[in-house]
């Protein structure tokens, strides 16, 4: 006799503690709370068996395993983990439920909820146990109605088992493609007027409870979008202290699209909870702690004065850590728009003005003491802007990620990174510089005297007025072409210009089809949402452009420091130690932060034959490698070589018109190497661990930018 088929749905009323391996922690906790008489929303659990059947029928375990095999997670940067997670989650988006599974789930959902709105939440198998909370690792979807939409939300929750945060905790979670499983709870949606979370024990002080409340839905609090009011309740005495109302401007509310942030007109001032309600929440915490025997972290909502418990889980150290700092990437579109305005209208113009101001200083007018002060001041300015770069400029990249998420969910493209094609900009500072270099190369091509001067390596002495003008503009605008730390270092550009002049350079790819893609994107939204969709695209384009340009602006400032540093060193030459002014100058120079120089390559004991990274630029090429350890080496780059480097930034991409491909240690689809590779249509693989150690200059490489593979050939091999 065949074994009875494991159920794919369980109503909350039928769930017992023994069902944990099937229903997950959250569902079991809710069932227990309901049995104890606490009010919880009507709930149906989609069991882990449904997830397993979906995976078994879809080939997804193989896809996930292939993605995870690219690189050990501990070698990945956060951005690479994000990209891997995006590829895995997108596989879920593209993979439909098998017919019989969809039929079984649809029947149960329709019978239970009909057309009523629901919330769809994770109930992972290890979730909410006494050891692991995993709060916030997986996604929830609120105010979803209609069986088809609920099933899509269930797939998204399943996919969030492979979120970037979950991947970072993969070992702790025991997350393996073949063994993974997740329960999902579908609950009647409660549009609470006030909601919040409450901790039965303050992670920072065991004698206290903490209650937090926001207007509207508590997802706003959990996602970090709405700042909560907070109360501290002493566990023994019950004494309450109010730690202040948040400056409330908006609340998360149900709307026709699910949920959205709405500006507040009332409820802006005064505490959200009165003493009676605080006592009710405190009693709720105590009741939950009695039931589960350990202090709980509960989510609650108040609707028509009914206190409804949405979930309860044990407090863990993890939950406390998560509460301490929300990741910056969770910034909402509105926050990112504010950041974009700040970067575009204030920060970058200020950086440009600062660089220009320094460029106008004539060193000849500064005595040694003044020069010393100038060195110290420029070092300070550079440090300041480096701080701004980390704190305010890098987070702008999340505008691109936010757009990618929305685009993929709406359009479900085969390639989860195809949204990047919509973002290719009209102009970038680094591309303007490359065009200027191309113009200079063209002059060398057409004017034999200039060519002869370049062949002698004497660009600084050239008298040709047009060349002089363009060359001077290049040095001023191009950021920190690394030629200023030695006298007449500009002459190092001569071989590069000759190489550019010796044949046709790579051209930027035309942006054909981009408009059609934009129209397709906008058409995927109902008319009423198109304005917001267009604004998100505009934000993503600005993020994409500004994140490249900011490096050039920072390098222009760094160049000004290197110029004054070179002048200082020139003046120090021949001075004695007893010279007090020279000592001041020397001290200033010692404090100057050194430019980054990579360690000399040391080959690992085992020879690498084939390396796997991320496919960041489509194309396939076989050519010789040129390994760049420090920026100066870029000037000996030759046409047709594959650029191999640790981390490519826009100040290095002037060689890209000559390159046949790019290989980079730093990984990610949004890094500068990937951006420039897409601009020029070059094969590019990023995230190759120890790329500059494992590959040597002159080695013959194949770069497969479709699959993210780099092959290092033996020279004896004929094929390729």
């Amino acid at each position, binding site marked *: 006799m065949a074994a009875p088929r494991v159920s794919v749905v369980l109503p909350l009323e039928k769930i017992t503690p023994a069902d944990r391996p099937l229903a997950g922690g959250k569902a079991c906790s809710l069932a227990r709370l309901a049995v104890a008489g606490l009010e919880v929303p009507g709930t149906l659990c989609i069991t882990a068996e449904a997830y397993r059947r979906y995976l078994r029928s*879809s*080939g*997804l*375990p*193989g*896809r996930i*395993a*292939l993605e995870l095999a690219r690189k050990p997670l501990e070698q990945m940067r956060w951005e690479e983990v994000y990209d891997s997670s995006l590829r895995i989650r997108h596989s879920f988006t593209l993979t439909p439920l098998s017919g019989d599974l969809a039929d079984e789930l649809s029947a149960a959902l329709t019978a239970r909820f009909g057309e009523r709105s629901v919330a769809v939440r994770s109930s992972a198998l290890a979730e909410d146990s006494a050891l692991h909370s995993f709060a916030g690792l997986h996604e929830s979807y609120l105010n979803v109605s209609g069986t088809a939409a609920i099933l899509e939300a269930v797939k998204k929750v399943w996919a969030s088992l492979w979120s970037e945060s979950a991947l970072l905790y993969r070992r702790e979670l025991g997350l393996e493609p073949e063994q993974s499983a997740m329960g999902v709870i579908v609950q009647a949606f409660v549009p609470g007027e006030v909601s919040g979370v409450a901790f039965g024990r303050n992670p920072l002080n065991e004698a206290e409870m903490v209650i937090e409340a926001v207007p509207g839905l508590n997802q706003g609090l959990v996602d970090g979008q709405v700042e909560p009011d907070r109360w501290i309740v002493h566990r023994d005495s019950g004494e309450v202290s109010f730690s202040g109302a948040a400056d409330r401007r908006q609340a998360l509310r149900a709307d026709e699209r699910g949920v959205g942030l709405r500006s507040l007109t009332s409820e802006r001032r005064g505490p959200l909870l009165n003493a009676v309600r605080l006592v009710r929440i405190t009693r709720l915490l105590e009741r939950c702690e009695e039931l589960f025997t350990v202090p709980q972290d509960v989510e609650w909502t108040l609707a028509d004065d009914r206190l409804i418990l949405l979930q309860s889980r044990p407090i863990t150290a993890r939950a406390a850590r998560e509460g301490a700092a929300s990741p910056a990437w969770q910034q909402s579109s509105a926050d990112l728009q504010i950041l974009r305005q700040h970067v575009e209208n204030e920060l970058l113009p200020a950086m440009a003005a600062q660089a220009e101001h320094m460029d106008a200083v004539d060193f000849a007018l500064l005595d040694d003491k003044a020069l010393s002060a100038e060195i110290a001041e420029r070092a300070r300015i550079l440090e300041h802007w480096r701080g701004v770069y980390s704190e305010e400029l890098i987070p702008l990249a999340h505008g691109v990620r936010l757009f990618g998420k929305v685009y993929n969910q709406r359009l479900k493209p085969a390639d989860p990174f195809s949204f990047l094609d919509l973002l290719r900009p009209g102009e970038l500072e680094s591309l303007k510089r490359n065009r200027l270099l191309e113009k200079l190369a063209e002059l060398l091509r057409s004017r034999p005297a200039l060519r002869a001067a370049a062949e002698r390596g004497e660009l600084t002495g050239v008298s040709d007025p047009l060349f002089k003008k363009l060359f001077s503009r290049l040095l001023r605008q191009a950021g920190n072409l690394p030629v200023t730390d030695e006298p007449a270092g500009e002459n190092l550009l001569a071989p590069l210009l000759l190489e550019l002049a010796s044949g046709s350079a790579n051209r930027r790819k035309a942006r054909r089809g981009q408009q059609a893609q934009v129209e397709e994107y906008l058409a995927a939204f109902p008319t009423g949402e198109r304005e917001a969709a267009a604004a998100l695209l505009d934000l993503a384009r600005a993020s994409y452009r500004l994140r490249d340009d900011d490096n050039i602006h920072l390098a222009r400032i760094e160049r000004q420091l290197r110029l004054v540093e070179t002048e200082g060193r020139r003046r120090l030459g021949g001075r004695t130690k007893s010279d007090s002014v020279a000592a001041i100058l020397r001290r200033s120079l010692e404090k100057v932060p050194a430019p980054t120089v990579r360690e000399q390559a040391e080959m690992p004991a085992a020879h690498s*034959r*084939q390396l796997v990274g991320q496919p960041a630029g489509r194309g*396939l090429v*076989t050519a010789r490698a040129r390994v760049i350890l420090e920026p100066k080496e870029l000037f000996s780059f030759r046409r047709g070589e594959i650029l191999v480097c640790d981390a490519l930034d826009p100040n290095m991409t002037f060689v890209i018109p000559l390159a046949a491909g790019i290989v980079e240690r730093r990984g990610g689809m949004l890094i500068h190497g990937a951006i420039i590779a897409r601009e020029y249509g070059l094969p590019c693989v990023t995230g190759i661990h120890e790329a500059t150690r494992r590959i040597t200059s002159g080695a013959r490489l*194949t770069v*497969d930018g*479709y*699959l993210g*593979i780099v*092959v290092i*050939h033996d020279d004896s*091999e*004929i*094929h*390729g």
Partner: protein
Amino acid sequence: MSATRDIETIIRQLLGRQKFAVLATLREGVLFQNLVAFAAAEDLRKLCFATGVYTRKYGNISQNAQVALFVDDRRNSEGDFEHCLALTVRGTAGLPSSKEIAAWRRIYTTKHPYLDGFLDSPGSRLVEVSVQLYSLADSFQHVLEWQPPG
């Protein structure tokens, strides 16, 4: 006759069950072996696997089309002496004709749906192996050979 049917059935089941095979290629007297994800045609006269054009195995096959594939179901325990099946497939490798590619693609992605992206890559090729001989070992030393009809 029934022995033939038996060996054919055993081979069919083993090839259906196992996802990976060890591919052996030979170039200028030097052997080279790889693990490949394979699939078999219904009549067992041909097998196929996918590879990148820049790989050593693809280069080797371009020079010398004689290959062998090894498929087994060992569990890495002493019981393997009694229960393990070990199948060697000798054959000639080549690229399928443009007419055959679609059919191979269907067979291959049915067995390995997660490799569709790999197949779509311009740097990848499906390679078919025309089988000359199957050699099946079981019960430690018991070896049978079978040539698919045709």
